[in-house]
Structures are given as C-alpha cells and as structure tokens.
C-alpha cells in the first residue's frame, strides 16, 4: 500500500511539473474591441502563434465601445477600435493607450433604382443632401448633373442607415461632417447619430437587405461587405475633384495621402484625404495598446505581434478585402513600437 502511494507520487509530481511548466510558458493575451476588422484579426491571431508558439491571443469582437471600456477597466491586454479615442477618453485612462493603425477600410454608397444599372456618381453635396433629407427625389438636379445620360426616375429617395452603433457609421458621418457644414452643424459624427431621414437597419447585412428589396432606396455599407457580396456601388468625388470608385488601391491611396500630415499618435481621420486617386470615405482601424505593460512576457508578446503585423501580417489583408497600410505609415509605426514600455 505504502509503496503504491510512493510510486504514485513519483509519477504524478514530474507530470504535474511538466504540465504546470508548459502552461506557465504560454503567454495568454486577451484583447477585445472592433467588429469591422474581426476577420483579419482572427486570421492574424491564428497565424502569429505559428511563429511564436508560446503566445496565445484571444480576441473578442464586442464592438469598439466595449473594447475601450474593457481596456479602461484593465480586463484586456489591448483593445481595438474603429474610431480614434477622444482626448477626454484618454485622460480618463489609468495607463495612456497608444494607437496603432492595422489595416484600412472604406464605406461605399449602395442603391437600388429600378431601371438604372450604371454605377452612379455622387458629389459630396449630393450625398450629404440625400442623407439630410434635403434631396428627396432621384431626378434632383444635384444628381442629374453628375450623372449625365442616366435615366434617373422622379421617385422619392428612401434612405437606409445603420441602426446599430458602428465604426462604419462613424466613418460615413465623419466624412459628411467634413464635406457639409450643414451636416456638421445639425448631425455631427459618431458611431450612432440622430439621423435626419430614413429608416435604420441592423448591420451591413440589414442595410444591404433593405436596399436590395426596397425600390429607390440608398444606403451605405463597408467596402469589404460590398466586395464579398458582389454588390454594385457608386463612386464618390474626392477632394481632388475626381470621381473615384472604392477599391483596395484607392483606399490605401487615401492613407498615403494623409500620411504626410499624420500626427505622431496616429489619431487621424483620413476621410476626404488629398490625392488624385484617393477614395474619400476611407478609414484606419486601430489597436489600442497600453503605453506601459508590467508583465515582461506580455510586453514581449504584444510588441512582437505589432512588429509582425506591420511586416508579415499585411499580406493577409488584401485577400480578405482589407486595404494594406501604405509604406509611409508602416515605417512610422515601427518607430512608435518603442513607446511601449
């Protein structure tokens, strides 16, 4: 009996040490936030541990707001957001967060007008007018003048917008605020706003669904969603005066155009960016990393992840429909990684 117990101990203790040792070596990183980059993040967080087998990353796409809240409460190691944090939000954080742009996305106008199969061209004024409810018919002169030769019907425009709080709405309203003083004054930019017109639908799929089945309607969806679902969408006139149809190149171009005037903390909106080919309704999405990480193993893992993301990781962006970062921004971010202490 006694011998058996000793034998058991002899066997169990090394096993326990082995198990405990391997668990100890594994660094578990928790992160939460934006839903828009979730497909690329889940790809990255699956690929990165293949390079660094000791790291495991758990990302919950609970929304940008939730990501910022969890980061403030210290329940996650880093957050992710589709809109840069405001000064006020940063001032309330115990540890100052750093912004790291990861990939780019765009927002496109999509519409359903019976009898019109061409891609429409939208001027900034026309888009703002439609979503303000001031342009209420498809044959309005503001639309006709930029779309010569298109037989626009004299039908009432039905506006469809996102009902759920979303980074997509933030980018779209941020753009409208930049190009239309009336929009800026009466509505403004946020993840949810007080819409002057139209009906709200939940998610990209909700907006796309309503637009698809409602004649004479217009809505806005993420570029990725439009590409993956083979939806048609219109082009928008950019700051340089050219009508640009969104694709990965024109979105990256918007970031390159904005790179010159990029602030050191990367908190920048790139809507209505300069650049001949720049698509005007584009945005970065950011990782929010605390500037001070106490656990050295976690610090090593997170900075390693950031480095890999900027170099090896970017090649995964394109196939998933995200525009990769321009070189200028990558170089700038590589320097900023040193700020994580």
């Amino acid at each position, binding site marked *: 009996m006694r011998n058996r117990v000793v034998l058991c101990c002899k066997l169990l203790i090394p096993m326990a040490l082995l198990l405990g040792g391997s668990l100890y070596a594994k660094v578990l990183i928790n992160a939460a936030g934006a*839903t828009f980059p979730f497909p690329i993040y889940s790809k990255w967080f699956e690929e990165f541990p293949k390079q660094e087998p000791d790291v495991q990353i758990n990302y919950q796409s*609970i*929304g*940008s*707001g*939730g990501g*910022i*809240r969890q980061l403030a409460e210290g329940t996650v190691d880093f957050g992710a957001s589709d809109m840069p944090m405001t000064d006020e*939000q940063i001032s309330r954080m115990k540890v100052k967060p750093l912004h790291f742009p990861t990939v780019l996305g765009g927002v496109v106008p999509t519409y359903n007008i019976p009898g019109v199969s061409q891609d429409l061209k939208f001027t900034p004024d026309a888009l703002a007018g439609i979503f303000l409810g001031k342009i209420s018919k498809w044959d309005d002169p503001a639309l006709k003048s930029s779309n010569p030769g298109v037989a626009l019907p004299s039908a*009432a425009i*039905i506006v469809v917008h996102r*009902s*759920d*709080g*979303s*980074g997509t709405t933030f980018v779209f309203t941020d753009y409208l605020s930049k190009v239309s003083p009336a929009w800026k004054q009466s*509505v*403004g*930019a*946020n*993840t*949810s*706003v*007080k*819409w002057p017109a*139209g*009906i*709200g*639908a*939940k998610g990209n799929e*909700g907006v796309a*669904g*309503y637009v698809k*089945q*409602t004649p004479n309607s217009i809505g806005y969806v993420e570029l990725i969603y439009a590409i993956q679902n083979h939806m048609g969408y219109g082009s928008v006139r950019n700051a340089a005066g050219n009508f640009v149809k969104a694709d990965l190149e024109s979105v990256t171009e918007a970031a390159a155009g904005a790179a010159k005037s990029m602030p050191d903390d990367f908190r920048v909106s790139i809507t209505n960016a300069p650049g001949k080919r720049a698509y005007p309704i584009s945005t970065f999405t950011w990782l929010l990393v605390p500037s001070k990480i106490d656990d050295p193993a976690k610090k090593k893992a997170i900075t390693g992840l950031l480095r890999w993301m900027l170099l090896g990781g970017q090649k995964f962006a394109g196939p998933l429909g995200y525009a990769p970062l321009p070189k200028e921004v990558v170089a700038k971010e590589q320097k900023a990684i040193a700020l994580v202490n």
Partner: protein
Amino acid sequence: MVTATQSLRPQAGAGAFWRRLVNGDEVARLVTLAFASTVLLIVAVLVFELFRGSAVARHRFGWAFFVTQNWDPVAEQFGALPFIYGTVVTSAVALLIAVPLSLGAAVFLAELAPQRISDACTFLIELLAAVPSVIYGLMAIFTLVPLLRDYVQPFLGKTLGFLPFFQGPSFGAGYLAAGLILAVMICPFIISISREALFGVPREQREAALALGATQWESTWQVVIPHARLGIIGSVFLALARALGETIAVTMVIGNDPSIRASLFAPGYTIAAVLANEFTEATGELYLDSLVELGLVLFLLTMVINALAQLLVVLTSRRGSAHP
C-alpha cells in the same frame, strides 16, 4: 400564496422541528425556500445594478428623461419618450390583433374541434412558440415588409387614410410591421395557455348550462369563458410581457428611428431595440448610463403593466361569477 403556506405550516417547537427535519419535510421546505429566494435575489440585483449603472444619466436628466424626445448621441442629449411610445404602441398593436384571433382559436380547439384535430393543431402551435425570434425577424424582412409596402399599406392608406394612423409614405418597415410580427409571435402563448384554461373548466358547468336550455355558443360564451377567465387573462399578460421585451425581430423591422409619429406606417423604435443596437458601441459615460437607464425604464414599464394585470384579476374576481 404566502399566507396560504404560512397557514398550512403548523406552529411547532424545537422537537417538532427536528422530527420534521428527519422526515424530510423541513429539508424540502428549506431547499425550496432557498430556490424561491434566488428569484427575489435576481430581481433585487437586477434593479440595483440598473439603478447604480444609470447614476450619471439620472443626475443629469432627472425626470425629464421620461418626457423628452431627443436622442442625440453626438450632442449627448438623451430622452426616453420615443422608445417608451414605440414599445407601448407595437405591443398594443400586437395585442389588438393577437387576442381576438388567439381566443377564437383557443375556443375552437377546446370546445368545438374533434380531439385529434385539436391535439394536432396544439402541437403545431407549440412548435411555433419554440421558433427563435431571429427566424421571425427574417421572415418579417423578406415577406411581411414587402407585402406591407407594396399591397397592405397602400390599400389601408386608400381606404382608411382619413385616420391619422394610416397616413404617410409606405416604407414597409415601421410600427405596423413590428406589431404584426409580434402578434404572430405571441399568438402561440395565448392559444396554448387559454386552451388549457378552457379544458380546465369542469364538465358539470357545461352540462348544467346546456340543461338549462342554453345553446352551445351560449354555454361557451356565458359559462365556460367566464370560468376560465383568470387563465385567459394570465395568458394575455404573459404574451404582453414577451411583446414588450422582444428585441431582435422588432429591431429588424421597426425602422429604428427615435421619433414619435401617429402613423403606424412610420418607422419607430422600442426600448429593447435601441439597447440591442447601441449598447456595444456606446462610448462615453453619459451615453452608456442613458442606455442602462432605458433598461430600468423597460423594467418599470413591465412592472406597471404586471401590476395592472393583477389589479384587473382582482377586480374581475370580486364581481362574482362562476369562478370562486
């Protein structure tokens, strides 16, 4: 309930307590008491958390939160009235449609239909109650909304357009679509529970009515339904509670526009829908706390309506009829 259990429990000393404990009665009482009190505890924690979580909004807006119409996350101005209005209107539309329909169905299934048909129908109805609400929402988006937009609303506008409820452009999505899909969702509850209540009416009651020379309709309408009244009212209020709190299906078809309009064609918003929509991306303390306060408002609304239900039950019971 409480008085009933207290009167059943004998006044006993320590010895009797131990005897009962050994017999298991006392153990059963304590265990079930613990289970019952978890319900109270959950309610208490819920109210406390909602109250605590909404502190910033309560201090900032006070009672005005209940009566202001503005919901502007950019300017950080928040008022609950459009959401309260939308919640009440969609639930009222749902009840208006579902109650007569379901009662008729329950009476047929309990009183008139052959047993086999009744059982088969009941099985299907209970199946409907188990369908997830997102399925109802999808059905509403792809069939109900186009139907309303292209046929029903233009027709209503033409025939009943003189009423303020049936005016304005027809989007398809709006109060009417939400009310209709809610009606479909709560019908199974009312039918199923009412049918059971009608079955529970003693056979002698029916026979007595028939013996007095009543027709079958008179017996059903004047004896059986009043006798089963409590069960029927209970089913209606259970259904109402479901309608008030239904989230996904409503969010998908109500149009999500926080403004108050008389027309049922217009897009609106409900409390549950705005919580589902805006909670995840809400940044800023005031915004978040206002959403939590909306949760508190929904809780209060449900409580007020439940209290009214109890009152109704008490009032109708006092009037004295077939039921004790």
